[in-house]
């Protein structure tokens, strides 16, 4: 769905810190939302923890930098990183251009998604959350 100026794909889950989660069997693909990339604007650097690293839900899993600012990326789920998007090293602007596609950050082998899910939002809930913030 599209809310205000922001794309919010239906089948993803969302965190309050503006990360998204797409479930693919035992793994999750994670990234930052359209809202996040529009707030950051002109992303010039991305750094995500290495493959093999254990991440905890809502703990820092990386950093994203625009020309002006440095922001933490908070893990939307807990688990072990199995793959990171190497393309972002040379082309961090993919986060601006295609936040839900080529701008994905990492794949995570999930620890306990049912537990994580309790603290995530559906697309509709996230849309309401964004609307609340923009008011």
């Amino acid at each position, binding site marked *: 769905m599209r809310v205000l100026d922001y794309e919010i794909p239906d089948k993803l889950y969302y965190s309050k810190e503006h990360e998204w989660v797409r479930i693919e069997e035992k793994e999750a693909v994670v990234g930052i939302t359209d809202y996040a990339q529009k707030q950051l*604007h*002109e992303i*010039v650097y991305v*750094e995500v923890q290495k493959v093999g690293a254990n991440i905890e839900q809502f703990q820092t899993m990386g*950093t994203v*930098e625009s*020309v*002006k600012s*440095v922001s933490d990326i908070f893990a939307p789920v807990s688990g072990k990183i199995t793959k990171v998007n190497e393309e972002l*090293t040379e082309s961090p602007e993919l986060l601006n251009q295609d936040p839900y596609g080529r701008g994905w950050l990492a794949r995570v082998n999930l620890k306990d998604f049912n537990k994580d899910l309790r603290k995530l939002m559906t697309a509709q809930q996230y849309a309401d959350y964004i609307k609340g913030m923009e008011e």
Partner: protein
Amino acid sequence: MSEPLKKTHLYEFHKKTAKMTEFAGFEMPLWYKGIIPEHMAVRKSVGIFDITHMGRALITSAKSDAFLNYVTTNDVAALTPLSAHYSNMCNEQGGIKDDFVLSRLEQEKFLIVYNATNRTKDYEWLVKNAKPFDVKVEDVSDNIAMFAVQGPKAQETLQKVADLDLNKVERFKCGWTKLAGLEGFVSRTGYTGEDGFEVFVWNSPLTNPANAVKVWKAILEAGKEFGIEPCGLGARDTLRLEAGMCLYGNDIDETTTPLEAVLGFVVKLKKDNFIGKEVLTKQKTEGLKRKRVGLIMLEKGIPRPHYEVWKDSQKIGNVTSGTQSPVLKQGIAVAYVSVEHAAEGNKVAVKIRDRLSEAQIVKFPFYDPTKYGHGRQT
């Protein structure tokens, strides 16, 4: 309770077209299209900035020279009418009160343009120190609009709205001119490293924005064929940083001296007494402990203010400004390091999130001055 933010004449234009930010008590444009496209427009063609938030004061008296030579570090006697120079004001300890551009309008009349963040402080400092000199200091900040037109196409753009022949206005010279038919003043100065002008719309009180808006729109129209971009404070910062120019509050403040900041070229120690002279003379004789240098990252990563600079497992200084250079596409920084490690070419490390990333000390500007900036050869 905090005061409501001040607005410049162009507020309605900015609000409609830019992402806004608070700066020095003003609501100002941060970017319109984006920092990178605005930055590159200035490096390759032309951009226009609303810099009305800066402080402006007129200094008038037969004793202006004596007063200004006492309160500032550069030699005012060297300024002929309709010329300008960069200078500093120091406190008694030699720390920088502010950096600014001073223009001599007439033999006994000067215009000083200082940082927005220091508007009240500078005005009060000038007034306080003017007392023994019988000098009139008049704050005209809210009566004059100020824009910067910067880039290799700045002259061609501005010439279309100015009746003064800009070929006759050399770098750091100024002149009176009609701007879109209105009374104006231009100086060939700026804060980007590029050729360009700072433009003053003389009778333009904040309460009546029409004149300022007219000149702004005329310049935008004149620059259309060159792809002019309105530029926000974001690009203003990345441009000045690439050029190696200081930002007050980051790279210089009352705890840094002009000598440490490598601004010694505006400190004339041979002058008669001026505020800070004693301490600066002593520092010059005894030598510096630290100095301002440029750093370029040899690895990926972006240096930011307050990051530590290391050499051989020892901390040698701190970053005061840093960004990703839009021209070089590498991290660049201004840092203060201890003098024994400050030599150009020296390899050091910047601590970015607990990791030491390799960097090298380089001279300013960061870009190749034969390809970019006012001295470009192409």
